[in-house]
């Protein structure tokens, strides 16, 4: 599989909260850290406002991986949105499991506004991981 994927450029969608992870992405940019360009960033007010249906929509439309980024536990700008996100993503993952999609295609990461470096490294790791997994099985079977 790994060989087939050499030229594979995954479609990656990120949902990044306004107060932490989007700002971390700003910081990564400002400090000119380089990371793979595959990620398509969507700013959300909070990780807790990411409805699982957005993730499903993205996966069914052909995204190979989804990453949700929020503030560190205890630091959510809206008190507890990141805990809500954690609960929802855990629930979503069991559903994806039953549908036969690898768990690792959906990541949830806490990246604070100060962690530009962590943002860049995470994007690199995430892209690597999805390249390793290859194109999403949904891409072939379900594409809408």
């Amino acid at each position: 599989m790994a060989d087939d994927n050499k030229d594979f450029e995954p479609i990656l969608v990120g949902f990044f909260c306004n107060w932490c992870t989007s700002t971390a992405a700003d910081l990564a940019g400002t400090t000119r850290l380089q990371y793979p360009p595959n990620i398509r960033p969507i700013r959300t007010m909070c990780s807790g406002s990411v409805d699982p249906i957005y993730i499903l929509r993205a996966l069914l439309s052909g995204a190979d991986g989804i990453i949700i980024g929020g503030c560190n536990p205890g630091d959510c700008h809206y008190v507890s949105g990141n805990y809500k996100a954690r609960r929802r993503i855990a629930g979503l993952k069991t559903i994806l499991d039953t549908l036969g999609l690898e768990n690792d295609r959906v990541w949830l990461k806490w990246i604070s506004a100060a962690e530009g470096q962590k943002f860049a490294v995470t994007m690199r790791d995430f892209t690597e991981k999805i390249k390793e997994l290859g194109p999403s099985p949904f891409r072939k079977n379900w594409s809408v």
Partner: protein
Amino acid sequence: MEQSGKDKRIGVFVCHCGLNVAQSVDVEKVVQEISSYPGVVHAEHYQYMCSEPGQELIRKAIKDHNLNAVINANCSPSLHEKTFRGLVQAEGLNPYHQEVANIREHCSWPHANDRQTATRKAIAIIKATIDRLKLNMALTPAVINLNKKVLVIGGGVAGMQAALRIANGGYEVVLVESSPSIGGHAAQLSGTFPTLDRPACLVAPMMAEVAAHPRIRLYAYADIEEVSGYVGNFAVKIRAKATCVDETKCTNCGRCFEVCPVAVPSEFDRGLSDRKAIYRPFAQAVPFRPVIDVLSCAHFSDDGCSACEQVCSENAISYDQKDTVIEEELGAIVVATGYDLITRGIAPEYSDDPDIIDGMQLERLLSPTGPTGGVVKRPSDGKVPKEVVFIQCVGSRDQEHGKSYCSRVCCLYVAKQSLLYKRSIPEGQAYVFYMDIRSDVKGTEEFVQNVVEKGRTMYLRGRVSKVFRDGDKLKVWGVDTLTGKSIEIAADMVVLATAMVPRTDAKDLARVLNIIADQNGFFTEAHLKLRPVDTLTSGIYLAGTAQWPKDIPDTIASASGAASRILSLFSREELLHDPAIAYVDEELCVGCGQCVSICAYKAITLDEKQKLASVNEAICEGCGACAATCPSKAMKHKNWTPKQFFNIVDVFTKEYE
């Protein structure tokens, strides 16, 4: 309410940002491709869009092309969203018909070495932003009434400072103190490090100023019962406890104290003296008036005593006085409820002996107005203690038995107390067991050094393993970790520097106010660094040790901070609230109530009869948690709707087809 998107005439303005964008993004190509994108009627690029010529170019394009929506493709929205929204508003557009596409921080900078890919990504980001903008609603900020009156809860130094600053700023303050007098812990102190000022010089003048201030209304011996509403518009119910003394008649003669047969341990002297059931907590109390403590008063128990009533020539005693509930409406709240000291039970190695006291008890013994007139005498037999052992960090920095945090003032007050003790008993010897000395407050490092070097206080680095009674003495066993030797001291008195902890009722108050208390019970600030005196509930601020252990200088600083936050809040005539908040599509709402429980701000109410949720616009912070939870998708987050997210996602996933 949702938009079709067909009505938008969108202009897209791509910024080179000098070379910051243009070096890795082919702006020419971007404009070319975007020009023909559905909904776009005009697109152009320019060197610096945020400059005056850049802004003029946008203004002109709005007029020339009759634009009613604008995309600015440039740096992060955190930098210029405000600028461009202001610009389009000045041109008569709704500011929420402007969006930023971040093609600098999120694209040109991190992908600086691949012009082709960066250009493609920039185009995708702009298209996605266009498709989101198509469905943006025009919004206007909600205007909220601002009642410029303040509630301060707690009358220690923090509450007094906040109340005085706000009242001097010209606004009415209601100060609620649960005990019979304001002053708090600072009024109990003997002197204060590092200058040794007496509370009579520091705290008493503040208390007098509060009492006399024309704009401060003081309710002492009163509790907060209920708080509702939101910033600018709080309604509170205050329960003024019955004092059973008619203040208008009482002349403070004090004869009642003499005749009252019931003696209970004095809270002010921390149990080292007795007070009567009818009492004034201390000589400088404000308000200066007696109260009857109905829980210990014998009139209310079986024997129906009425000694004070009989002796009162003014007929001021009124046993059947009832609590009164006062309602106040106000715009902002300061929480200044202070701290407590951890109970000694946490440390099994210290036995329950009357000559083992805590730091606040020693403050009373050192105080000229204390039970022993400032000459230190030990509680068991009134003997002057010749050997005193201080033990620091009792319950602090002790995850196992107490609290993991440092209480911040103990190192300093122990140094102060050992110095004052030596002044009181020159032939006495003080020993201090410490973990390390933390003296980071201005002037205190020199102060502690002075005590260590000149004060002849013996500092021993190490822990005490046991304290037990041995005849007339208290045996203290410990280890000096610097020399490795075990130490045994036969002491007359032992002083425990016990941890500062939140008041046990702090969690209840947090619930009443809808603010957060941390795992220890201290109130949590909105942001430790950037918003240290705000809470996450707008309009509610923190002052003093209710937030975290502090000394008096830090307490005053935080109280002044809370006051200044309120003064700047009140500098406006009314409040504007971000309109990008939640709303309910009543057609879809089934009244399941899931949104009510998920909202961290209690912004949603459920009409049980109609089975309909509704959002309070003034409280909603626009986090979007409810919308993501709503199973019937009736709850929507304005301008962040599912359709808008789908539009974005679709652009990003179809881009490769």
